[in-house]
């Protein structure tokens, strides 16, 4: 793929470290939500965050994207300065984080007053100053790629949830970020629409995009993840290859969480009554 190919990952998947976050802490008032999170993402790698609701997964992603300012810790994003949150962080550094990564939200957060193509070119044209013609051409290629070419002039409300989320992914891709952040991209979808969105994410992973994905879709994690982090109570309880974590978790908390997801009807404490 040529370097100008809009479909090509912006970061070459050469396995070097793209992002390294150390000792990330975040408090909201008295509530310490992240208690020293370490996270390393290599180029081309897919890191999946799992964990119960409220464990701090979204806050981790938002910190990596500069939407949230951690109370302590450092983020070293390749090509930029090491940001140390112990001191007040200059605005320019937070913007630099946003420029390098792009977020796909649980509630797609598409711009309702803009058509699909307008949603996608807004960042490239307004922020990155890409010529409009070029931005439209690249956006069209990306939309075509996720099977939404004929929806380019539709408004978001005219799309299904799965289509909306695919546009959300394209909007992120159009910025050519080095890192894609997905926050439960399929949690708000009807079950029959989950597959089409996961499929797109899986293909991007296979093409070498670097991503951090928060999801409860364990089959996706099993297939796509290079590393799985299990978070609970603001700490990473366990991390490792998906095979190891899912089949042989070392921590009780991980095991209970996986049990609850895989067998939601059973009470964790009760004897196993299934055949």
């Amino acid at each position, binding site marked *: 793929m040529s370097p100008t190919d809009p479909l090509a990952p912006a970061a070459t998947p050469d396995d070097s470290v793209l992002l390294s976050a150390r000792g990330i802490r975040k408090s909201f008032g008295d509530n310490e939500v992240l208690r020293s999170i370490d996270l390393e993402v290599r180029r081309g790698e897919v890191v999946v965050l799992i964990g119960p609701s409220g464990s701090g997964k979204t806050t981790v992603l938002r910190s990596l*994207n*500069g*939407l949230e300012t951690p109370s302590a810790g450092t983020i070293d994003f390749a090509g930029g300065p090491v940001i140390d949150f112990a001191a007040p962080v200059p605005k320019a550094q937070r*913007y630099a984080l*946003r*420029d390098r990564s*792009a*977020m796909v*939200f649980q*509630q797609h*957060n*598409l*711009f*309702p*007053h*803009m058509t699909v193509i307008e949603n996608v070119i*807004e*960042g490239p044209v*307004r*922020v*990155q100053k890409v010529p409009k013609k070029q931005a439209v051409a690249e956006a069209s290629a990306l939309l075509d790629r996720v099977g939404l070419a004929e929806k380019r002039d539709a*408004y*978001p*409300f005219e799309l299904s949830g799965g289509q909306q989320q695919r546009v959300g992914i394209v*909007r*992120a891709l159009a*910025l050519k970020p080095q890192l894609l952040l997905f926050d439960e991209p399929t949690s708000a979808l009807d079950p029959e629409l989950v597959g089409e969105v996961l499929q797109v994410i899986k293909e991007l992973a296979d093409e070498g995009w670097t991503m951090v994905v928060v999801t409860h879709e364990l089959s996706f994690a099993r297939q796509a993840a290079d590393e799985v982090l299990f978070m609970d109570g603001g700490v990473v309880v366990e991390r490792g290859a998906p095979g190891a974590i899912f089949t042989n978790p070392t921590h009780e908390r991980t095991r209970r969480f996986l049990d609850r997801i895989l067998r939601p009807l059973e009470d964790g404490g009760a004897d196993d009554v299934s055949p």
Partner: protein
Amino acid sequence: MTDWQLALDSFWPLLWGGITGTIPLAVASFALGLVLALGVALMRISRNRVLSGIARFYISVIRGTPLLVQLFVIFYGMPSIGITIDPWPSAIIAFSLNVGGYAAEVIRAAILSVPKGQWEAGYTIGMSPGTTLTRLILPQAARVSVPPLSNTFISLVKDTSLASLILVTEMFRVAQEIAAFSREFLLIYIEAALIYWLFCLVLSSGQNLLEKRLDRYVAH
């Protein structure tokens, strides 16, 4: 006994008073007032306590005092401290300040009605808060604020009649002059009322068109 000839003869002067007085006064004051209101709304939302305090105070004063008193303070009151302002500028200042106070609350509510996720989506594609506001938030806020702002504008068109009391030649002042001269008070004032009503009907249909246009991106 109704003098139909007088009704016909006075129609054009009244309408002309509306076209050259009422409408420009309302349009200019509304435009200035909206700009002011946007600034005040942003101050009010701001986390800076001084700014939001000033905005709150301003809104409270405007909404808590009669428009006629505001007009009189500016036109008849200011000369006492050496500031003399002509009738037209006085009226525009008073009406703009008034619209600024009322519309600020409408715009503030409209901005706050846009989901927080829209700000975040703007930030994540690299936009500054200012660009996010103008490109993403205000266009969406516009849709919700058109109905209440239209009401503000329609009220303003009617309220411009108060400017007759500070010697501005708008439609109602023309009506008063014709009525005093002809002694046909009922006829002339009803005629003026009908023309105000006509203006407001036109505005209401304009409002409907605008609402339809802004509604094109929401599910029905």
